């Protein structure tokens, strides 16, 4: 049993890596269609990564060893964080290793090195991106923790599998805390994965960019890893919203049938989320950087309201 479970966990982790570019490609495709363009094929992100791995990586004269190590650390930390979020099945041992606080910590570790890598070459763009990224995360990370804590407190556990189980077993879903936490987490997910209206993944316009500014100096396999890590992070947040807030359909045993169903359901959920994201990115405009704190404060406020409405209204009742 345990060997099989660990095998499944490994498979799920590999599935994350394999699916991440697909989600990015799907969102790009839907967005292109919404804008009356044909767009690149859905598999384009895979081609980009393949192409980048084949190209030579170059580094600035001023870059240090940290610059070279950062892509590997960023990718690894993001991947490990993703491996602990249930994607297809719940009964996996990875969830016991890392609860939701550890996941937030691993994402923060990745961000720490991403920001440092941005500052390493010593260009103004890199510093600017790092500074903005740390501002965004300084507000988004507590909001994310609060949103997940709301669910964790409801389930009396920070273990995501327990949270999902509790969610599946509960009857009254339309609790105020649940709605607040969901709204807060969605805003955080948009900010953290660098999407419109906080950041724009498709531009190199220096006045607006955050994420792209930090990885501006990367090339070749280093750039491929950084891009892949960003796609993984998007998928992680997608899975968090899809499986923790809407867990129905997730496989609860290791049978082939339920696993297949779980995979199909989660792909459908992620596809839906992707459409929603593409629509919102099409109708919304990118915000000025100094409007972003207001956006994130809203997320923090919503998440805190969720937590407070839980501890005040729902615990005693």
């Amino acid at each position, binding site marked *: 049993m345990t060997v099989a479970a660990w095998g499944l966990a490994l498979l799920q982790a590999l599935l994350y890596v394999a699916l991440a570019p697909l989600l990015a490609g799907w969102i790009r495709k839907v967005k292109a269609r919404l804008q009356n363009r044909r767009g690149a094929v859905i598999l384009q992100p895979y081609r980009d990564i393949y192409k980048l791995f084949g190209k030579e990586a170059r580094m600035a004269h001023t870059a240090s060893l940290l610059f070279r190590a950062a892509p590997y650390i960023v990718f690894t930390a993001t991947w490990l964080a993703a491996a602990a979020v249930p994607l297809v099945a719940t009964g996996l041992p990875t969830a016991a290793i890392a*609860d939701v606080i550890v996941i937030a910590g691993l994402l923060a570790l990745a961000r720490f090195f991403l920001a440092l890598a941005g500052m390493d070459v010593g260009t103004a763009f890199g510093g600017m991106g790092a500074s903005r990224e740390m501002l965004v995360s300084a507000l988004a990370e507590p909001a994310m923790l609060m949103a997940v804590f709301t669910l964790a407190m409801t389930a009396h556990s920070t273990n995501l599998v327990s949270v999902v189980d509790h969610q599946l077993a509960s009857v009254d879903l339309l609790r105020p805390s649940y709605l607040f936490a969901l709204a807060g987490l969605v805003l955080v997910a948009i900010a953290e994965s660098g999407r419109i209206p906080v950041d724009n993944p498709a531009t190199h316009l220096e006045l607006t960019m955050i994420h792209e500014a930090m990885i501006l100096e990367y090339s070749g396999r280093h750039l491929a890893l950084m891009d892949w890590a960003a796609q993984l992070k998007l998928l992680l947040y997608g899975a968090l919203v899809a499986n923790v807030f809407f867990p129905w359909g997730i496989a609860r045993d290791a049978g082939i049938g339920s696993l297949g169903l779980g995979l199909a359901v989660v792909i459908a959920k992620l596809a839906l989320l992707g459409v929603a994201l593409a629509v919102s990115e099409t109708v919304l405009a990118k915000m000025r950087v100094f409007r972003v704190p207001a956006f994130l404060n809203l997320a923090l406020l919503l998440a805190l309201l969720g*937590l407070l409405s839980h501890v005040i209204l729902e615990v005693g009742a």
Partner: protein
Amino acid sequence: MTLPDALLPAGLAVGLALLSALVSLFAARYPRVLRVLAMPLFSLAGLAALVAGLSALLGGSVSIAELPFGLPWLPWQVRLDALSGFFLGVIGVVSFAVGVYAPGYVRGFEHGRDSLAALGGFTGLFLAGMLLVVLADGAFLFMVAWELMSLSSYFLVVFHHDQAANRRAAFLYLLMAHIGGLAILLGFGVLASFGGGFAFDVMRGAALSPGWASVAFVLAFFGFGMKAGLVPLHAWLPEAHPAAPSHISALMSGVMLKVAVYGFIRVVFDLLGQYHWQWGVAVLAIGSISALLGVLYALMQHDLKRLLAYSSVENIGIIFIGLGLALLFMASGQEVLGVVAFVAALYHTLNHALFKGVLFMGAGAILHSAGERDLEKMGGLLRRMPWTGLFFLVGCIAISGLPPFNGFVSEWLTFQSALQVWQLESGVLRSIVAIAAAMLALTGALAAACFVRVYGVAFLGQARSRAVRRARQVPPGMRAGQGLLALLCLLLGVLPTTFIGVLNAVPQQVLGQGLAQATAHGWLWLTPMSPRIASYGAPLVAVALFVTLTLGLWLLGRGIRRVRRCDAWDCGFAPPGPGMQYTATAFAQPIRRVYGLLFHIDEGVEQQPDGRRRHRLQVSDRAWGIFYLPVMRAVENAARQVTRLQSGNVRIYLGWSLATLLLLLWIIA
């Protein structure tokens, strides 16, 4: 005098510290004595303290002895139990590393004008004072040792006394240390008057009414909080800690603040022995505010040592959040949760001592080799000082609370206890704890921003001044001191269950029960309540990180030596120069703007005499305007009123004396 066997290492530690102080006197004539004799003795004292602490934690016995000093009716008693053992260990490990680091650092002073005898002498006395505070088993010895610690550290702060700013900082420190000391003395007075004696054993038995207990609590919280640097009593800390030589800053921030935490735990948890939720709320609120304001002010500093001092305020705040939660849960009858929060606070105490030690030593190494404390003039130091850069990076990651290092474990434990708040009866308390958890999360994220800024500006990029460009590797001893603490940061992060198992004796002694569940599932798993509620496989996370990273490097980094160098792309602009880099001030600008209300910002454009214009930006602490200036004004006004008595006429003065004498006689009679 005979000491019980268990107290021998502790006695040896105090003795070695005093010997190191004594030997340093010869440094006045032979400067080398400090480096080759006094500092190794200091290091040995730290090692002995570490051994004493560990044996008390592992042995679990309580040993008591009476010293042949003190007054006939007030003997000096010492006692080594689990709580003092833990703090002995904290003092010992940092002192040991500082002793290894210091010889290289003080070498730079050998040709200066400052007195090396004073430096070594007061350093030894400082350590002896801290050790005796922790060992004292009565208010009398405690206060004597406390004053020894405060006074000797005053002389260390004022060591570079040729700068007026340092003298001012030291005076402020002396003043506030004594106001705090007075409050502690009064707190002991309350306990002693109910218990009928100054020995801690007698105080433990005192039956205080809740009202008087609260008075004692407030006095202890004020006094120890002042020493620990809780907002708004922190004003001395960012002035005094940077003024001292860097290895002393490491001791002050890493260890002395912990002695204040020890005093608070000893008085509130051990001696008072009763818990009220109001106390918990007060400690939690002050702790959260300290944590948040500490990190925000740290973000605004560009003097590296000052920044680290503000970050100590933040971390002390996190420790007090844990202690406040512990009080709150104990008062509400949730003992298990109280123990979790208490262990989290202890673990963070140890962690902060380690990583703040690394960071201050790193700042000292930069000061030693480049003579620079200002972040705006640093840059590119990772290439100049790779080892210091590596250890400093470990310190930065650990203090930002990121896995797999130690700071993460204590924050994780604090969150875990806060998340069990649903077990409390009162909705108000539940929401207070929830808000405190939110503030802790915000603090953690801001701390990461703060240390990305420090590391990115100081160690990455290009050098911004000539001295930094020419910085050289520091001597091996200095590197070893930093490396030792950095390694411990990693170990405590990877094997938390083992260390918490050792530290478990403290809550067992103080709160009456340990954290049996935490270690019940083997060294791989940290499960504070039960595996269903929460578990963290720290070694597994670390191994997974390591294996995946190695695999990735091996698979993809085969051509690692073949990476070609070129000019930075930078969107096609000209190759960037050092002056084009983002500065520390620029990095913090968005955060300064978002949290502008919390700072006192003085910003504008100045016309220079030569016609040039200059941008002026001064971010200062609001606490001065709100808390300190009114007090200063009141004192000055009172002094002005008193001068009315000064008529210059001797007969009137004699009349005042007579009146005072009569009044006193009347009161006594």
